[in-house]
């Protein structure tokens, strides 16, 4: 079972994170200050860390920098009340793997942790991604479903690649927008919906089992059910 270290000084938030992650079947541990957090994290027995940006003792940026200096590569999700784009860049530069702004949607947080866990687990980059009868060749940049070549636009290919890399995980709209286009703002409800809709029409012809599923109120998941 994957273990997640929660470094967060606010008890209520920590509980919220813990409850949500446990719901996804993850084991959690909570630490309330930076110094203890760094100590524990260096132990290296965790699969992921959620890290508050502002902490008593040692702030989140310093902590993640020290952690990376000591060679620990555990994925870190930085959680911060500072939503500024520069803050995000700073957090990611210091060694954070992802960045989330407070107050966050717990689903979104859990989805991001899941992605981090997955990314860390298969660090090796496969040449071909497969989900059910869907096959994505990353070298040829072609997609096939049951042997039939799919005619995808570059954007659709990137979108599908992201969904397939994290198949079985719920991906929120913002996560998709960030990953596929690289921008960190709210593109509005429709944008991702429409893009997913188009991909779906190409991917899931009526006679076949659908692969892209909508998780109401949360996002999308690609999996063979």
């Amino acid at each position, binding site marked *: 079972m994957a273990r997640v270290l929660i470094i967060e000084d606010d008890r209520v938030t920590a509980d*919220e994170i813990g409850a*949500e992650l446990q719901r996804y079947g993850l084991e959690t541990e909570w630490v309330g200050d930076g110094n203890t957090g760094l100590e524990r994290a260096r132990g290296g027995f965790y699969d992921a860390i959620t890290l508050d940006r502002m902490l008593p003792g040692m702030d989140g940026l310093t902590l993640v920098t020290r952690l990376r200096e000591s060679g620990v590569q555990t994925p870190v999700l930085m959680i911060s009340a500072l*939503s*500024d*784009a*520069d803050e995000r860049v700073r957090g990611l530069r210091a060694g954070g793997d992802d960045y989330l702004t407070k*107050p*966050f*949607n*717990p*689903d979104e947080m859990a989805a991001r942790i899941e992605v981090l866990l997955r990314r860390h687990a298969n660090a090796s980059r496969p040449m071909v991604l497969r989900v059910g009868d869907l096959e994505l060749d990353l070298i040829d940049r072609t997609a096939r479903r049951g042997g039939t070549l799919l005619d995808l636009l570059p*954007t659709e290919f990137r979108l599908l690649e992201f969904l397939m890399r994290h198949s079985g995980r719920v991906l929120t709209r913002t996560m998709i927008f960030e990953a596929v*286009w690289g*921008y*960190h*703002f*709210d*593109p*509005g*409800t*429709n*944008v991702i919906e*429409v*893009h997913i*809709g*188009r991909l779906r029409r190409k991917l899931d012809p009526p006679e076949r089992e659908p692969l892209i599923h909508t998780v*109401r*109120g*949360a996002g999308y998941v690609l999996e063979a059910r």
Partner: protein
Amino acid sequence: MKLAELSRVSTVRLLPIYGLLFILWSVLLVGWVQYDTKRYLSGVVDEILRQRMHYLNHIDRQRLPEAMAQTVALDLQGVMLYGLFDQQGRKLVGNIEQMPGGVSLDGVVHFLPGGVRKEGDQRPIRSRGLATRLDTGEVLILARATSVVDEVNAIIYRSLLWGLSLTVIPGLIGGLWLARGPLRRIRALESAAQPIMRGDLHQRLPISERRDELDMLAGIVNSMLQEIERLMSEVKGVCDSIAHDLRTPLTRLRTQLHRMHREAADETAHRAVLEHAISDVDSLLDRFRALLRISELEDMHRRAGFTDVNLVKTIDHVREIYTPLAEDKHITFSFEVAHDIPLVRGDPHLLLEAVSNIVDNAIKFTPTGGSIHLRLTQDAAEGVRIDVIDSGPGICTTERDVVLQRFYRGTCTSKDVSGSGLGLSIVAAIVKLHGFKLQIIDNPSGGAWFSLSCGPAAAA
């Protein structure tokens, strides 16, 4: 420093008035001095002439020529003129060539308007003189050149000219030079006020150590700014903390609804209600997020994160992101990108967000089957410019200013479009941060036309 600007400084305006008064007064003063001097000197001349005449009058007719010659011999300066003429006006004795015209034989000293021609001279000499008829019927004329008086006059006149030019010209130059001081300080105030006008209320106007009237004015403005800043931060603080504080409980509410929804099994009616509630909470959260985003953008004063942005790429991304949305609504989404668009200074993410919001808005308001035209051009006057023109209902002239304000949603357009009314406020905040200009232009075909001028090209 421009001349027109300099001429408006109060010191410079006062200069000609003071100069004129000074000249007038000097002329009056010198005129009086000159008049008085002339009167005095003429008096002296007249006295001499009268005495001589008196003396000559009492000399025997036979000895008269001799006495006259003596008188002239005594006159080393050569200013004395005399002459004895017979009844027909012919010269008998003396150094006067001919009888001057207009002489009255009354024995009183007059200024001789025609002057007196001295023997051997071509031109008549300005002089004062008197004439009497002797008992013999001959005419005796005595005159004295006024050259001394004239010389003194000339000296006074010259000293007036010199005095004026030595005071008025340096005075004018000095005045202009002095006027540059206040102008330079106005310049400093102006440049200090620029960031304040851009919304950076932390800035204050500079106050020098002179504590003069400009400083007093700057001080008044500064205390006004202080108060405005305090009020603004209060209002903003209230807005932000409402948005911020409500976000957390709303997020929790959403989580709970979500949990209930998950556990609600298949009771469809129940689930539908919960789904509806979740989407309502979501739109509330979206609104708060947008509000906080605006205030975050408004707080960003630094432009350290700015780089050179290739707007062609930005437009490409917008095309990629929004074309499917337009196609779904059967809207013709056309693009026009000019060649050689220079880079602009800005934040690429924010600029994409701004253009996205405008396009998103256009797609929302343009009815099915309509069209949207996105144009990236460059012209000499306004630099790089992005235009988004749609065939929707457009924005009423009266609403053009307010649509950029928070929460405002057009009332004279369709009301069935969902949205927070914050999209354009975000655009406005981003535009302001960049120092660009967003305009809503009259569209002859009726739709909305947004024009974003990205300032002067390249160098910006």
